[in-house]
């Protein structure tokens, strides 16, 4: 039992990281109608941006977080303007291929700029808190709180602001959004900015929890898509739910199968969703 609860704690932590990635991915999927394969690499780029801030200015990671988020948001918008915008009208699948190329370009840039070896924000070992039989690292609590804060911010943005509502509307019914006179280009830019910023946050948190390496994001791409599909494409709240479910399932699976097959668990849940309930647990918009 103790073990289960400990795994659940880890699962919620992983789940909040996945949720941040999945919220952005699902919004991009909803508004632009394609699976963005470079989303994991946005996470990695964000994590490395923060690393630069941490090392150059000698700041704590959380202070570097906003900088990394802003920089990644800018990068996402720039890539969209430079590449995706030009092929948007052709065919959604071409966007898919292009995002695949973006993923590799970003990853190789990381290797060229920051190197291929593992890196950490902070050397030295954090003493975990012991609460009864459970252990919790201070970083974990920090990550959880920060992720919750970001999710609440996104929620307020989506429900209280004009742009946020327009974003949901576009994800709901693109054609009607056009007819209504919602400026698609501006909403698309905002979607990239938010998706990029959230991915960066997820990447920084992942880096705090484990370590930084160039494929850190790619390895989480599959669980993120799994969360997106489970929660229903285009549904930010579904993505949060999906992220938590996938995160917990991946951690709990280590009770019965070798830990090295963890990614397979996310995949199995995803395939099961696609086969039995392709519109997601909560019906998606795309």
């Amino acid at each position, binding site marked *: 039992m103790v073990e289960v609860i400990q795994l659940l704690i880890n699962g919620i932590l992983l789940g909040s990281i996945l949720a941040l990635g999945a919220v952005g991915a699902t919004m991009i*999927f909803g508004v632009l109608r*394609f*699976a963005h*394969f470079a989303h994991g690499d946005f996470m990695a780029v964000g994590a490395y941006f923060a690393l630069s801030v941490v090392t150059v200015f000698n700041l704590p990671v959380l202070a570097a977080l906003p900088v990394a988020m802003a920089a990644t948001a800018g990068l996402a918008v720039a890539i969209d303007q430079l*590449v995706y915008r*030009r*092929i948007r009208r*052709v065919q*959604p*699948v*071409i966007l*898919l*291929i*292009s995002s*695949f*190329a*973006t993923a*590799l*370009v970003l*990853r*190789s*840039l*990381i*290797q*060229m*700029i920051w*190197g*291929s070896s593992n890196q950490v924000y902070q050397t030295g070992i954090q003493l975990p808190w012991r609460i009864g039989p459970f252990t919790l690292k201070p970083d974990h609590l920090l990550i959880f709180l920060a992720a919750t804060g970001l999710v609440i911010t996104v929620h307020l943005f989506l429900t209280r602001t004009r742009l946020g509502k327009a974003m949901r509307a576009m994800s709901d019914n693109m054609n009607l959004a056009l007819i209504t006179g919602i400026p698609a280009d501006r909403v698309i830019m905002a979607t990239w900015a938010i998706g990029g910023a959230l991915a960066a946050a997820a990447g920084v948190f992942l880096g705090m929890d484990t370590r930084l390496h*160039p494929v850190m994001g*790619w390895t989480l*791409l*599959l669980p993120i*898509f799994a969360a997106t*599909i489970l929660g229903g494409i285009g549904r930010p709240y579904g993505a949060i739910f999906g992220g938590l479910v996938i995160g917990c399932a991946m951690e709990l699976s280590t009770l019965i199968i*070798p830990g*090295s*097959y963890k*990614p*397979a668990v*996310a*995949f199995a849940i*995803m*395939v099961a969703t*696609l*086969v039995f309930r*392709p519109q997601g647990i909560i019906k998606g918009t795309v």
Partner: protein
Amino acid sequence: MDLAGLLAYGLFFLNLVGIYAIMALGLNMQWGMTGQFNIGIAGFFAVGAYTSAILTTGPSPTWLGGFDLPFLLGLAATVLVCLPIAWLVGRITARLRTDYLAIATIGIAEIIRLFFLNEGWLTNGVRGIPGIEKPLGTGNGGYLLIVTAFVALIWLLVEMARRSPWGRVLRAIRDNEPATAAAGKDIARFRLQAFVVGSCIMALAGGLYAHFVGFVSPEAFRPLYGTFLVWVMLIAGGSGNNLGAILGALVVWLIWSSTEMLAGVLPTDLIGSESAFRVFLIGVLLQIILVSRPQGMLPERRPPMPGEPR
């Protein structure tokens, strides 16, 4: 480089072009003709490579070897082993939309990789399987003949398939699925068939690769890069066009190889890691192709409909 060195390099180069061309032809069956987005190429490739490696090597205490089968039987086995796997994968995914299929195929490739990595009793884990021999003691020159023969054979098969009524149905599914379904075609069945055939071709390429390099390990393929290169080849060559797929393999492998030389002359401080720099260049190249010439070097030419003048 002297003449002999150049010749040796040329043989090495062309062997790999041939193996990649086979993969590009397999992908063309799935993507170019049917519109199925498979980015799990490396998975099927690995299935083929490991199958032939395990079946044709001598006994070993650390992995399941010792079958010592001849080369051609090993290659035949790649297809036989891939067949049920691809069928199962295709069965599950045949009804999925393009983007879901894409996501699902990464997952499959990843699971296949994890399997080969973790099931050491079968595959020797990270250490990989060495000592896979070329048939009849041929060198790279002799092997090139074999690879070329396979390229020609596969090209003939997929080109015949493309011109057949079956190929026309695939294209109809790709271009207008609802109308094809309305015409009474069993879309899922045709898709499944194309997926299985394409995947088995990739597995065959994997088998040829294993015997060419003589060694397989989970990292030997650099799974993602392999998949990515095949995609660049098909898109650059012209998806839907089988000659385009082969031409794409040649040109992109030429570019890929020359990026190695470019990376060699540029100072390391400037580019960091050599392989990263090469992937970067190829990624940028693909973006440029997609933005400026998405139909590729040899655009698809549709075979005429029956009764239509040629």
